[in-house]
């Protein structure tokens, strides 16, 4: 209902407006302080706003007519009175504004967004760690590389909540409240009370955001706190943060922005920007502080995958961050997000580099019993299998080749990689190959701690074979490593098998050689019985020793074990059979043949089956068929 305009200030409209405003002066009466206009009565609220409008109108009108000194002096007095009334109205409106805001400023309803109590993990993939990395504790010089279990990291969380994959604004308060706030804001701003308006708005909405933060599980952690926490605890915090950040940016902040735009619709974008920033700048900084703390934490290999998760999540959020924080005053937030992203990338690179160095330096000297697969091998191969899962991200991040040579100058001999034959490979692939090169180099060093050369070869064979199997088992890894290098590795473990056989069996089979057993004389067909008996004794002793020892050695891979046993049999059995065939009669014609011909061919065949099982044989000697 419009009141008739009248330049004459002493009309009813102005007076009644002034009266209404004075009635609601909260410093004047108890009643005025106790009740809230906008809570009480729709009609009352409308009347009040109209009264404010009326006073404002008279203020602008009063400045027009100042033609005589008397009129001017009177005008000044009047103006002062009007100003006073306006101030009372503005103070009142400020309280009403605050009250409406506070009534509708609770935490975001997150129940429909996600269920914080559920453990939402996706099903484990085939890249889970196969067995515990338990290492014998004899070697206390193990570095941390081996101690740390590699956990499966889910690269994409299965959602038990409606997806927050894009900006989705929600209504933070009912439309009626927004209308009221809009109406009040308009009056406050047109009276020059913009600053009060922004201040009240910011302080109330900030507390609402704070409640939402707590609901989302966003904590106030300092950099020192993050440093002190165990990595496992941090991993779950990172997971939680990623979920929360998506809700914050895409729903919470976006909705706040929309609310500002709605309330300050009529007064221009600068003001709603200012209100928005007043509200969210602090919380946004608090949100990003955690990610920043992670990005600058000490680097160690087990952190790589969660850091990549964080990197990817932030990368994904970046366009939305730029959309929500698009004003000049929010520069610092966009800049901080971009900085964190680049630090995470740097951290990933640094960790990979650290990892390579750690493999090279891994110092454990205690030989793994039985020559089996070293925990280092398992760890490294599992690690790079996981890396191949993150291939998409890492290919973008890893941009330079591994540095070989000069970095390790000072070491006696350093591993080498021939880049010429690796043309056309991505830097990431080169790094993966380099890791395998470095791993082998370290394993070679470890193999030297075996006193028995045969065991050293077996060790190499086992471990390189494992590497090959792991590469073959992952299509992405295989594609990056390439079949050329795979062939090289295969050749390597085959060669180790051959070296093993030579080391062990040459001397055993030497006992079964022909020359040296015949007495001199080209026409004589005599055989030196003593020499023959020696041969048998030596052969038996050697075989028993080898059998006893090498039964405790282990080749974990069934097929490889079989192959090696067959290969041994193929040389041993025919040689023994032939030896027996030619010379047994000579022994049996003498005394105590059982002391020399202890084992039948079948005995030998059975004995070979004991090899590389990893168990000590129950009898001191090989079984005899008698």
């Amino acid at each position, binding site marked *: 209902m419009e009141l008739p305009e009248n330049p004459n200030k002493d009309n009813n409209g102005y007076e009644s407006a002034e009266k209404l405003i004075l009635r609601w002066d909260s*410093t*004047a009466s*108890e009643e005025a*302080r*106790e009740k809230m206009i906008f809570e009480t009565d729709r009609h009352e609220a409308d009347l009040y706003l109209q009264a404010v409008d009326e006073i404002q109108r008279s203020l602008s009108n009063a400045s027009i007519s100042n033609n005589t000194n008397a009129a001017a002096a009177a005008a*000044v007095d009047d*103006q*002062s*009175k009007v*100003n*006073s*009334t*306006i*101030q*009372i109205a*503005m*103070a009142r409106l400020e*309280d009403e504004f*605050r009250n409406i805001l*506070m009534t509708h400023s609770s935490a975001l309803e997150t129940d429909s967004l996600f269920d914080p109590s559920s453990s939402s993990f996706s099903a484990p993939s085939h890249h889970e760690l196969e067995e515990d990395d338990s290492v014998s504790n004899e070697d206390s010089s193990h570095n941390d590389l081996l101690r740390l279990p590699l956990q499966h990291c889910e690269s994409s969380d299965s959602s038990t909540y409606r997806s927050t994959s894009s900006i989705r604004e929600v209504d933070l308060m009912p439309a009626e409240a927004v209308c009221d706030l809009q109406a009040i804001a308009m009056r406050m701003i047109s009276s*020059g*009370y913009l*600053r*009060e308006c*922004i*201040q009240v708005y910011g*302080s*109330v909405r*900030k*507390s609402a955001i*704070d409640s939402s933060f707590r609901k989302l599980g966003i*904590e*106030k*952690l*300092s*950099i*020192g*706190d993050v*440093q002190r926490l165990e990595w496992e605890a941090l991993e779950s915090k990172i997971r939680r943060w990623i979920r929360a950040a998506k809700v914050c940016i895409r729903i919470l902040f976006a909705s706040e922005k929309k609310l500002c735009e709605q309330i300050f619709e009529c007064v221009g974008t600068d003001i709603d920007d200012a209100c928005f920033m007043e509200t969210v*700048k*602090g919380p946004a900084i*608090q949100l990003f*502080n955690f990610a920043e703390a992670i990005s*600058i934490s000490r*680097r160690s290999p087990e952190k790589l995958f969660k850091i990549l998760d964080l990197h990817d999540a932030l990368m994904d959020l970046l366009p939305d961050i730029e959309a929500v924080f698009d004003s000049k005053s929010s520069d*610092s937030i966009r800049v901080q997000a971009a*900085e964190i992203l680049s*630090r995470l990338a*740097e951290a990933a*690179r*640094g960790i990979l*580099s*650290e990892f390579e160095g750690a493999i090279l330096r891994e110092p454990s000297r205690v030989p793994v019993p039985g020559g089996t697969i070293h925990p280092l091998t398992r760890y490294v191969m599992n690690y790079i299998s996981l890396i191949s899962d993150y291939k998409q991200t890492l290919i973008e991040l*890893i*941009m*330079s080749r*591994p*540095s070989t040579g000069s*970095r390790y100058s000072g070491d006696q001999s350093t591993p080498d990689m021939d880049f010429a034959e690796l043309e056309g490979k991505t830097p990431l692939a080169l*790094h993966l190959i380099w890791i395998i090169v470095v791993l082998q180099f370290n394993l070679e060093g470890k193999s030297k701690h075996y006193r028995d050369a045969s065991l050293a070869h077996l060790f190499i064979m086992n471990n390189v074979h494992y590497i090959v199997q792991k590469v073959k088992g992952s299509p992405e890894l295989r594609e990056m490593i390439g079949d050329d290098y795979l062939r090289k590795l295969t050749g390597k473990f085959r060669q180790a098998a051959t070296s093993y056989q030579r080391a062990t069996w040459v001397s055993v089979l030497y006992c079964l050689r022909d020359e040296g057993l015949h007495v001199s004389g080209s026409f004589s067909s005599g055989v030196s019985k003593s020499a023959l008996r020696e041969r048998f004794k030596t052969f038996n002793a050697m075989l028993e020793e080898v059998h006893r020892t090498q039964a405790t050695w282990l080749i974990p891979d069934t097929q490889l074990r079989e192959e090696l046993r067959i290969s041994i049999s193929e040389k041993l059995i025919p040689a023994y059979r032939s030896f027996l065939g030619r010379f047994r009669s000579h022994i049996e014609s003498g005394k105590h043949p059982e002391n020399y011909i202890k084992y039948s061919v079948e005995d030998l065949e059975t004995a070979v089956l004991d090899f590389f099982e990893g168990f000590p044989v129950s009898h001191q000697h090989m079984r005899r068929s008698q």
Partner: protein
Amino acid sequence: MPSTEYQGISAPLTNLGRSLLPLRRDQVHSMESPIGGSPSNEVELESFQRQVADRFHDLASVPSDELLSLPWVRKLLDVFLCCQEEFRVILFNNKSQVKKPPMDRLIADYNERTVKALDVCNAIRDGIEQIRQWQKLIEIVLCALGGDSNSSQRSLGEGQFRRARKALIDLAIAMLDEKDSGQAVAHRNRSFGRHNNSSSHSRDPHHRSLGHFRSLSWSVSRTWSAARQLQAIGNNLAVPRGNEVLATNGLAMPIYTMGSVLLFVMWALVAAIPCQDRGLQVHFNVPRQFPWAAPILSLHERILEESKKRDRKNACGLLREIYQMEKCSRLLGELADSVQFPLSEEKEKEVIQRVKELKLVSDAMKEDLEPLEKQVREVFHRIVRSRTEGLDSL
């Protein structure tokens, strides 16, 4: 390189040339133990000590009304960045030494200190935001009383004064320490208003949100303490022993120097800017033989003295502009409380004067707060970068 070059610099220090060693052999004093080092790096190390000393002499030679002002604090941060940069160059030039013990441990220690400083930087950023909130309240006062640029000769009526007083009281509450805010809220309620009979403020949501507002402004947990953080930074900061100096080819000295510089700078920031649990009891035991010891110790003493002064004991920050803001606003508040309407010409003149003073402070803050925030961020970045620098990058 003249040591006053860094005055008022707000641009990031991208010019590495600044940190190249100047040739000032003619000014080199014959120092004994603080330098150490072999003939090859003795010049370098000596020069570093001299640079640090010169810069702090400059900082210390300001009159007391400039000490801990916004421009001075900005200068302090520039000094830190310069020293840090030169320190970095020294480490770079002595790379081979750096990896060997005991140098590696000393550097790891220094890096640990700098990490603790990162949290201080973040807390200071919060504090600057707080000051900004106060400055916004002052803008309301200025707007009300004609101190802002767009008001011409406007008559000051009751309405404007009420508006100004409201903002001044909000400011006073906001500037008090958290533990006092409950009392202050009651006081505000009593003193504000034409009828002073009511003591009930339960219904008034304004005060609830004001007190609440303070705790929201810290982005650190309630248990975080600036005092503890400073103590941690200064933990085990000891003058290197003779054998350490020898074993590190003299490099233990610049490390100790940078550690001391870091501690002092962080301490001064905490002294100046509001932050959670601002305790200033940190000891600086620097042997006088270091050329920079005298200026740093003198600054330390002066700042401590300032903190003990009667009217500054309970200040939430020793920044000069905070003091000015508080003083001006208090005087203006007293004036506003005492005026009768209509305003006498004399009173009006007084008000205009006070408003002018307040505007000066407000303008100074407005100008310097944002650059200060950027500088603090820059310190943060430099520290982070220097930590990761040792690693090879892919």
